[in-house]
């Protein structure tokens, strides 16, 4: 099958890859680039485990073709922490024990970060609706919602 050359930016780094026309961005990230932080929970846009940002917008990477990454800025879970320094959301999720198995966690971090960039002062309902696309089967969401609200407060404090 003919492969398509793609030039893109991932977490600030210029990246080039070849992909098959039918491969999703998630396939490319995981299978071609070895970035397995984004998870495939459904492949149909229903679970949010594969959440990334594309030009700052939150998307399910399983719903976008790899070839569509051409010229875009992709942000993945691998780019959220800064070296050894965790993002506030990551430390708050840890502190609140807001993960059990942890498979949903990368997607939750990416999605919640995108919420707080838009609205640094969300209330509980907004957090719940924003994260409605991110399934978590373990926690019942209680601790996740608390962690996100706490992170927001911490960020506002500066």
């Amino acid at each position: 099958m003919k492969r398509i050359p793609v030039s893109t930016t991932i977490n600030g780094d210029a990246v080039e890859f070849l992909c098959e026309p039918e491969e999703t961005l998630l396939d490319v990230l995981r299978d071609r680039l070895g970035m397995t932080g984004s998870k495939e929970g459904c492949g149909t846009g229903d679970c949010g485990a594969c959440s990334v940002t594309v030009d700052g917008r939150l998307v399910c990477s399983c719903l976008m073709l790899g070839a569509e990454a051409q010229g875009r800025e992709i942000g993945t879970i691998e780019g959220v922490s800064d070296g050894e320094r965790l993002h506030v959301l990551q430390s708050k999720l840890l502190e609140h024990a807001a993960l059990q198995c942890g498979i949903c966690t990368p997607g939750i971090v990416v999605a919640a970060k995108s919420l707080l960039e838009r609205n640094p002062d969300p209330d509980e309902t907004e957090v719940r609706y924003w994260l409605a696309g991110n399934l978590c089967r373990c926690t019942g969401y209680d601790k996740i919602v608390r962690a996100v609200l706490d992170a927001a407060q911490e960020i506002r404090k500066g």
Partner: protein
Amino acid sequence: MPLDSKHGFSPRQFKVVGERPLRPDGIDKVTGRARFGADAFAPGMLFGKVLRSPHAHARIRSIDTSKAEALPGVKAVVTRADFATDVEEGETANVLENVMAGEKALYEGHAVAAVAAVSNSIAKKALKLIEVDYEVLPHVTDVEKAMEPGAPVLHDHIFTEGVEPKPSSPSNVCQRIEVGHGDVEKGFAEADVIVEHSFKTEATHQGYIEPHACLANMSADGSGELWGCTQGHFMVRDTCAALLGIDVSRLRVTASEIGGGFGGKTTVFLEPTALALSRKAGKPVKLVMTREEVFLASGPTSSTAIHVKIGAKKDGSITAGFAELKYQGGAFPGSPVEMGAMAAFACYDLENVKCVGWDVVTNRPKQAAYRAPGAPMAAFAVESVVSELAGKLGIDPIDLRLKNAAKEGTKSSYGPTFGPIGLVETLEAAKAHPHYAKKLGPNQGRGVASGFWFNFGGQTCTSLNVNIDGTCTLSVGTPDIGGSRASMCMMAAEELGIPYDNVRAIVADTSSLGYNDVTDGSRVTFASGLATITAAREAKKKLCERAAAMWGIPVEAVEWVDGEARPAGPNAGEFEPLSIADIAAVAGNTGGPIAGHYEVSADGAGPSFATHIVDAEVDPDTGRVWVNGYTVVQDAGKAIHPAYVEGQFQGGAVQGIGWVLNECYMYNDKGKMENAGFLDYRIPVASDLPMIDTVIVEVPNPGHPYGVRGVGETSIVPPLAAVANAVSAAVGVRLTELPMSPPRVLKALEDKGLV
């Protein structure tokens, strides 16, 4: 019952246990570094895909794989012929049959062949080139229909067991079981009020977010390695070895991080196929399920039909309880009906109780454990009737439960006599909780329900190694599914008197430890914890011996306090204490490495009880139900890491909410599942839910040194009934069928003439 006095509970003050430290694997999980089942790669790896039956029931006349094999890039195709032929009847034979169909496809999604190719897209193409000649047979997916005479029969070797006389013709009814004591007829005769109802529940899926995945690598010498997500890598090793006809010692299985399981990863689905493909291709093979495959071809729970009858005196004392339970196990025997029957009335102290259970096969995927397997459905039925009884008698539903509650010394409905248990404590705490006194609004109802789970111990083996710097490495053989490494580190640190951060726990592979049972039955914090504590005690003993040798005094004159050896007693002499690091640093000169090891078949797992309070609001126009208040009260024995205990309570409650309100397997008249995806099989999302309040009750389990009881499963037992009671209270009609989806609730309102 205490395991023995050496391990039994003794009260103490804790330093680490009961705190809420960060989990050791946390940073890897929040940064995406943790490696789950599908995150493994190997050089030269092939991609596997499984061909699955499109029919609910069909005879496989022939399979022609030649075209697929001829496709460039395809390296191996396997069918049933590539598996062991000498697997005897019983569960292993069922697992083999389920992993790769033999003569018949027994459900839609049943594996019939598999390929390994150099890319995913070639593997997918190859599947289309495999020609299977099916003779489609009549099917049955409903448990009660499957029991009827004349129903399509799945297996001609199943003759109902447990009935007299033994049937002469095969059927779908595998077994009749009975539990109980006393005389229920006499009990009902003594009753002033009798309430009875028939209930139906649909199959639900554990819904773990990580689909099954593994990477198999067989070598030409017949040995192999397997990596994958599982709740029990030792079980995977033994089952795969049997299915492939290789020695257990030749297979090494490493458990990856696991993205949820809830019982659904306690069996094998893909692993033997990946190994068979790898063996044939001579290369590593990765197999990953799609979400659709997870629904169709892993193990959801049973659908059930349950009838419950309870009689009571005017004062609320229950005189008799009876239940008949019909559970389908999917295409193979082994539904959890016996556990359902045993758990049904376990919350109550009854003189007369009887449960009859039927294990039935249908053309559905082979059921697998789902959190307290069998119990939530039974509790749904029994606790619905108990609440209705309370209404009829005009007694508060918690008071009615308190009046009849099982306690220490009660002969349980399933046989043994209870030791110290915490049901009464959960009921009292629920009654005292502010939630119970809150005023309800219009269209709202409140429900309560209690629940029980046995909990389990099982084969367990751990090693604790003291490193040269005085830190410790703990090897456990139980996959960490919800943060158990943290609690293991806490217990080891507590016992050794060293900081939590100085202990690291790893999940060892199958070649590095003795056999460990699966991470199930809420057993890990109890059994691996018990083994960890005992291993730490053994290490402590050795540390004291080394200190004694260093000081030249008898070991009896050394005591271990706060992480250091101190001389003790009149003849010990004057020595500066030796820390674990001091002793470890010179271990090479005092006798070599220092370690503690422990292996056990742990019994003494204390049962756990819970009581849940739920507020539900029903939209009278649409029948949509909102849960707007939820409180879980559960006995943990001793909460090692309270935050993760709360997490188990909350997660179980929410899975229960999904089960009662909208999750279910929907079959069409062709026996095909119509909602095999997270869009149509919708598990609760954040915006469906309120915060889930928790209260941890601690009635120590005498069988564990720190008093621990398992907590992972009890939390899903009460919610079905608790939510059902709340909804029924809100609409003024008893709802008896799950899920309580909007059309069903609306219909109940219409039937009642309420809208």
